């Protein structure tokens, strides 16, 4: 397969640096896209496609942290984005919240992806505490906007990552943080792209997250050698993004991706699945996917995605109603092949536009606690009304 089924788009300085790191780890480097207003950042990034936004207005010097300028600049490149996202099933958007491009341009990218029928998975890093209150406030505001535009949103607070990247040097800390993120994203990509023994796809991630609020965290752990499974597990549960396992214990559901080489044994997979399901709360749900990759000989990589109900509750402004639970025991009708994925994505999109708003459809919605109050209450509460 030559054409990637997904695109990984880094937006802004932080996003581009992570994409650059991903060049080394992803299966299809041709899937990487970098978008920024700063020409130098783009030069340093090894993405397959690079889009410089705001060339005319900003003289290639950045947006100066102004989300509105970034948004307008991104809109100018919309046709270009459309062409990139045509016939792609999923778009992963990576950016740092708090800056101009992340807050302004990234939502445009997600919007375009969804218009093209792709699902948009957003991954955001939250600024370090020391970057100041203004930047943190901007990040919170941007997060709400993101949650509205993305199908699912995964968060990575830099502060938590920094505990892990115990590098005293500032540049080193940033580099390590980006490395952790790149590894995690690479893990997710592998799960989706590599032919799996037990398959997982983006629809699974999306329905898992949306059933629990739409916002989640993700973590990555790796192990090598004889006890590679135990090592990988320790690295995963000790990952600061999972708050040293506390996020797992809190979680109502978890999705675990296991990538290993040809030498990975059934016993190892069983051990990992068992261990993770034990660390999740007693009534937690668990989804496991495995993939075999030739470059993972002698290694096991774990990726966990955990919905974070706390973050969702406070931050999500859900224009997207959660997917209805699939009927228990119903066999999946769509075979998990690449070809089958695309039409399914399109269909999901249609469903999102269903709730009627009648006379309020053209005015600014009244949103509270993540609910659009203009949509009739009986629809949102799922009360069935006899039409007769």
């Amino acid at each position, binding site marked *: 397969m030559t054409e990637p089924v997904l695109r990984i788009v880094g937006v802004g300085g932080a996003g581009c640096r992570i994409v650059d790191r991903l060049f080394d780890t992803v299966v299809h480097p041709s899937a990487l896209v970098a978008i920024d207003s700063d020409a130098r950042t783009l030069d340093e990034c090894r993405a397959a496609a690079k889009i410089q936004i705001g060339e005319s207005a900003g003289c290639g010097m950045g947006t100066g942290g102004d989300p509105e300028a970034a948004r307008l600049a991104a809109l100018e490149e919309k046709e270009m984005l459309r062409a990139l996202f045509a016939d792609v099933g999923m778009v992963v958007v990576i950016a740092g919240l708090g800056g101009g491009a992340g807050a302004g341009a990234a939502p445009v990218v997600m919007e375009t992806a969804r218009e093209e029928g792709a699902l948009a998975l957003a991954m955001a890093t939250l600024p370090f505490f020391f970057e100041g209150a203004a930047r943190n406030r901007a990040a919170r505001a941007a997060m709400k906007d993101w949650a509205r535009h993305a199908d699912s949103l995964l968060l990575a607070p830099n502060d938590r990552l920094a505990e892990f990247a115990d590098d005293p040097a500032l540049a080193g800390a940033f580099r390590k943080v980006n490395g952790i993120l790149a590894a995690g994203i690479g893990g997710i990509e592998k799960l989706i792209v590599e032919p799996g023994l037990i398959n997982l796809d983006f629809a699974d991630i999306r329905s898992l997250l949306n059933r629990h609020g739409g916002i989640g965290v993700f973590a990555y752990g790796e192990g090598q050698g004889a006890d590679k499974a135990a090592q990988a597990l320790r690295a995963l549960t000790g990952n600061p993004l999972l708050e040293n396992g506390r996020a797992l214990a809190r979680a109502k559901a978890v999705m675990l991706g296991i990538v290993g080489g040809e030498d990975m044994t059934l016993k190892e997979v069983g051990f990992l699945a068992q261990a993770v399901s034990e660390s999740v709360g007693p009534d937690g749900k668990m989804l496991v996917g495995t993939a075999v990759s030739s470059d993972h000989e002698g290694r096991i990589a774990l990726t966990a995605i955990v919905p974070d109900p706390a973050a969702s509750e406070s931050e999500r402004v859900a224009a997207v109603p959660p997917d209805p639970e699939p009927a228990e025991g119903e066999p999946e009708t769509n075979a998990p092949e690449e070809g089958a994925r695309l039409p399914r994505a399109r269909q999901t999109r249609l469903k999102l536009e269903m709730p*009627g*708003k*009648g*006379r*309020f459809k053209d*005015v600014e919605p*009244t949103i*509270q606690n993540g609910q659009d*109050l*203009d949509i*009739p*209450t*009986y*629809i949102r*509460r799922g*009360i069935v*009304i*006899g*039409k*007769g």
Partner: protein
Amino acid sequence: MAIPPVVGLEIGTSKTIALVGELREDGHVMIIGMGERESAGVRKGEIVDMGQTQACVRAVLEQAEENARVHIGQVHLAVTGGHIQSMVNRGTAPIMDREHGVTEDDMDQVVHVAGAVNLAQDREILHTICQHYRVDGQEPVVNPEGMDGAWLELDMLALHGIRSRIRNAVRIVESLSMDAGEVVFGGICAALATLTTEQKKSGVIVVDMGGGTTDYLAYADGVVAAAGAIGVGGDHVSNDIALAFNIPMARAERLKREHGSAIPDPAQASRRVSLPAEVGFPSRSISISALQTVIHARCDELLGMIKARLEKAGVPSRIGAGIVLTGGGSRLTGIGTLAGRIAGLPCHTGRPRNLSGLTLATDGPEYTVCAGLIKYAFMCLSERRSSDAFGVWMDRIRGMIKRR
């Protein structure tokens, strides 16, 4: 007669109303004229089409001029909209004269400090309302004058909204070559019109259910504890009905008035109401229980939301005088019972008090806001003339949008 008549204008979601009021010698307010028309270009309390709204306001004011036989030069405005929020801001100032305790100057100073609320750039303060003073962090007092201490604190409730939306109403009035006078939050108007002093003292929640927005204001411990607006009103109820049964908005509106209830009525559960055929719509019948279920869901959610907001703002659950419902939405059958049930408080419908004149205007809950607005305007006038009881009250609720 020293005080000229005043004009109050409410550009509501469903109706635009203007009332002309006159202050009698004995302090009684008399409504001497009114204009009224279905609104155009307004959604959820906010103006979305300036041109349409302007034409509508012009017609309403002309009607009021004719009706009251006065020339209207200045118009006071009631504003609402889901963007209006409240917050409590605490200010602190040193007590300068340690020998005589708190002076008027100290109080002015702390009012100034507490009124300096930090807002997002696109917002502006609509009102600041003094809640209570504290001296050196002790028990709250209403009037600290003469008290001993080092520091004076003041809790101030600030009502704020998005500047451009508030200004839209002002702009419309000015485009008709009239002066915009006071700009007042609808919830304050509703409270002024319907509440008695005893109710305010023992604690009360006033809820004004309009077409597109619902304003609320709560008194607890003798002060305004919280206020705000939610962009959901009677229009939403009708819209829900229209969508649920796939009928036009006008029919839904009529169904709501004639057969609607906020609490499903078991006696009517099996009944159906038939709709005669209209152009483009065949005749059909609708189950009353389904209709009332749709209405109940919406009202239950709205009232629950207000309750949650008041709880969040720290309004105590023990409110002596219960809930006063007003506005056109309070005409819905069963809404009072539902509100009472949700809040666990007695609830009744409020109408404008201490008003005489045109019966229509003094009787209907739709006119509460406008009537309150006229009272507010007279209070502002008399404050400028003397510092009597009105003046003291005005000291506590300040309109911040200055006349030009």
